């Protein structure tokens, strides 16, 4: 078991630029069931992916492959022809919001948007659009979602993951890799790792993902990685203390971040005295979350949390 994606999830890709093509290739190498692509001007042709280009040289399922993905003009056509339920969006920022809404309109269950740099106002519209639909959005500005050994949608390096017992949810990319790597080394592995992204307006929240992991029978604990800005971690703390039945460990980045400065991520900013790391850490500790004192201690914090429960 896992959350969001599994080995039999059929996935399409929206956006076949350099990044989209590269990561479609690494997804196929990992064993993800990529079934089609959407591109407005290349409809009717195919995109060829031949041989493992995963730079780690460690393809997920080992076999070499020779895949021709059919390209459709619209998401609706792609869904109709392939039965896909999930989409990976690599469309450039000016068009990404529209791509997400098109995917939702076509009835996809899950849309994972990797694109960084979507205007906030566009995401405000996306959020309103999705409020009336069943589609779940992950991202944007995120590494994606991976269920180790089964399905990888996004830009994360597959080989650092290992099928296991911990659900990972994070606002950061490389910090997630750090966490996943520690969980793999420590032998806990991951059920699913979800990057919810570093933007101020995004799809799935910490609370959404915590709820999914809490219901997933295979997930035994959750490691959540937050950062300064907004109140998503405080909302998570509230939810954990009310509803979470499984142990949670966490790390919050940005203890030393100065107020009023955007720390790389569009959403990582302390404004009006709100969104500090200290406030988030206090809220999470108050909810019983074991907070790692440094990012090197995320794996051991998870072990500690598991031991306490």
């Amino acid at each position, binding site marked *: 078991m896992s959350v969001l994606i599994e080995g039999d999830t059929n996935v399409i890709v929206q956006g076949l630029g350099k990044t989209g093509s590269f990561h479609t290739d*690494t997804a196929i190498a990992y064993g993800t069931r990529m079934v089609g692509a959407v591109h407005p001007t290349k409809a009717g042709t195919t995109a060829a992916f031949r041989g493992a280009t995963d*730079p*780690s040289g460690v393809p997920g399922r080992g076999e070499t492959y020779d895949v021709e993905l059919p390209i459709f003009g619209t998401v609706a056509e792609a869904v109709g022809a392939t039965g896909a339920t999930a989409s990976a969006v690599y469309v450039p*920022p*000016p068009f990404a919001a529209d791509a997400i809404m098109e995917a939702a309109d076509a009835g996809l269950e899950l849309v994972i948007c990797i694109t960084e*740099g979507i*205007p*906030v*106002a*566009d*995401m*405000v519209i996306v*959020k*309103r659009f999705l409020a009336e639909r069943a589609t779940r959005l992950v991202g944007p500005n995120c590494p994606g979602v991976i269920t180790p050994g089964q399905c990888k949608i996004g*830009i*994360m*390096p597959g*080989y*650092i993951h290992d099928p296991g017992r911990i659900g990972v949810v*994070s606002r*950061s*990319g*490389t*910090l*997630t*890799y*750090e966490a996943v*790597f520690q969980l793999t080394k420590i032998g806990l592995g991951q059920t699913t790792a979800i990057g919810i992204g*570093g933007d*101020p*307006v995004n799809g799935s929240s910490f609370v959404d993902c915590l709820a999914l992991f809490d219901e997933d029978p295979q997930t035994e604990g959750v490691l959540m*990685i937050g*950062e*300064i*800005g*907004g*109140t*998503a971690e405080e*909302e998570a703390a509230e939810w954990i203390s009310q509803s979470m039945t499984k142990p949670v460990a966490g*790390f919050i*980045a*940005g203890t*030393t*971040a*100065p107020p009023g*400065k955007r*720390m*790389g*991520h*569009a*959403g*990582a900013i302390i404004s*009006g*005295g709100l969104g500090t*790391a200290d406030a988030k850490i206090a809220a999470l500790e108050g909810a019983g979350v074991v907070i790692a*004192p*440094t*990012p*090197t*201690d995320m794996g051991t914090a998870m072990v500690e949390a598991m031991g306490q429960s």
Partner: protein
Amino acid sequence: MKIHEYQAKQLMAARGIAVPEGRPAATVDEAVGAVRPLVDASGNPVVVVKSQIHAGGRGKGRFVEHPDLGGVTVVTDGISGGIEAAEARVRALASRMLGSTLVTVQTGEEGKKVNRLYIEQGVDIDRELYLSVLLDRAVSRNIVMCSTEGGTEIEEVAANTPEKILREAIDPAYGLLGFQAARLAAGLGLSAEASRNGVRFMQALASAARELDTDLIEINPLVVTKAGEVVALDGKMSFESNALYRHPDVLAMRDETEEDPAELEAGRHGLSFIKLDGTIGCMVNGAGLAMATMDIIKYFGAEPANFLDVGGGATAEKITEAFKIITRDPAVEGIFINIFGGIMRCDTIASGVVEAVEEVGLGVPLVVRLEGTNVELGKQIIDESGLNVVSASDMKDGARKIVSLTT
């Protein structure tokens, strides 16, 4: 991206938002020349001389060179002395303010040089209010926020009298609806003429926020005049950087002299850099990891000199540029490079670091922590380079090493 008050008011005026008339002035003569047309237009002999810098608290701020002088000065000489007296006073003020350094609560001790003034009509103030449009992340919408406590920092109002802050969320499909604006106007105690003007003002401001992709418009104070007009006495606008591509007119208002030169330089090379006050330079891939690296340096007792995210696709060229920017800071006593190479390979990073050190030179200790794809190859490249670089086994080890090497 921030712009100056005078630019924000130009954008507002063009959208039917009431602002006092004013003229920017980069020279003393321009400042003096602004007085007569402004007084003629308003019939009010009072003008205001306002320093234009990208920081708030100007009124209470003081010039380094003229400790008796504030950043905003109301000139009343015209009331009894006529226009000539007002002009003479503006000349005296402008010659002291232009080129001087203004220190406010928001500029830091070093202050900001005033290169431009804004000469504005005096306004007959009845009440001072607060009004802003900004993103409320909790509801994923822009909100209009207002308060009767004009002239006070909104953070202070939020901390002391949160009940005095009124909010309405803006549905992106409809904009700020009339009844919402009327509800805010009533909450602010506006009546009759002022209420009608307030509603119009708020709806126009909400539309402007949407049209211009602002991340903040703050009017503090928003004033109600004795005649019931509702006017933006101050105006602060900043823009959402992801959306600037669709606003070339706004982008043209950028004033790079207001920005940190190192941050500007980094931006040109696609690096995300923020200067901090510490002594340990950091080079990291990924924003979250970069923040966490700063935190771990602090955890071991030192202070980071910067935030620097080289991004996912860091090339040797980018690493060299990042290295140059870090080493240019005289406060830097040591450098910690912390890379988790996922898609980015550690051997590429290592080659980049070696190239950078060879090109730029290395006068301070350097600790490199590499993890991820081709990590052994990366470490080998560093070890065989013959450079004075210390390898770290993990982030904690690296942070501990760079702190002990510099203290």
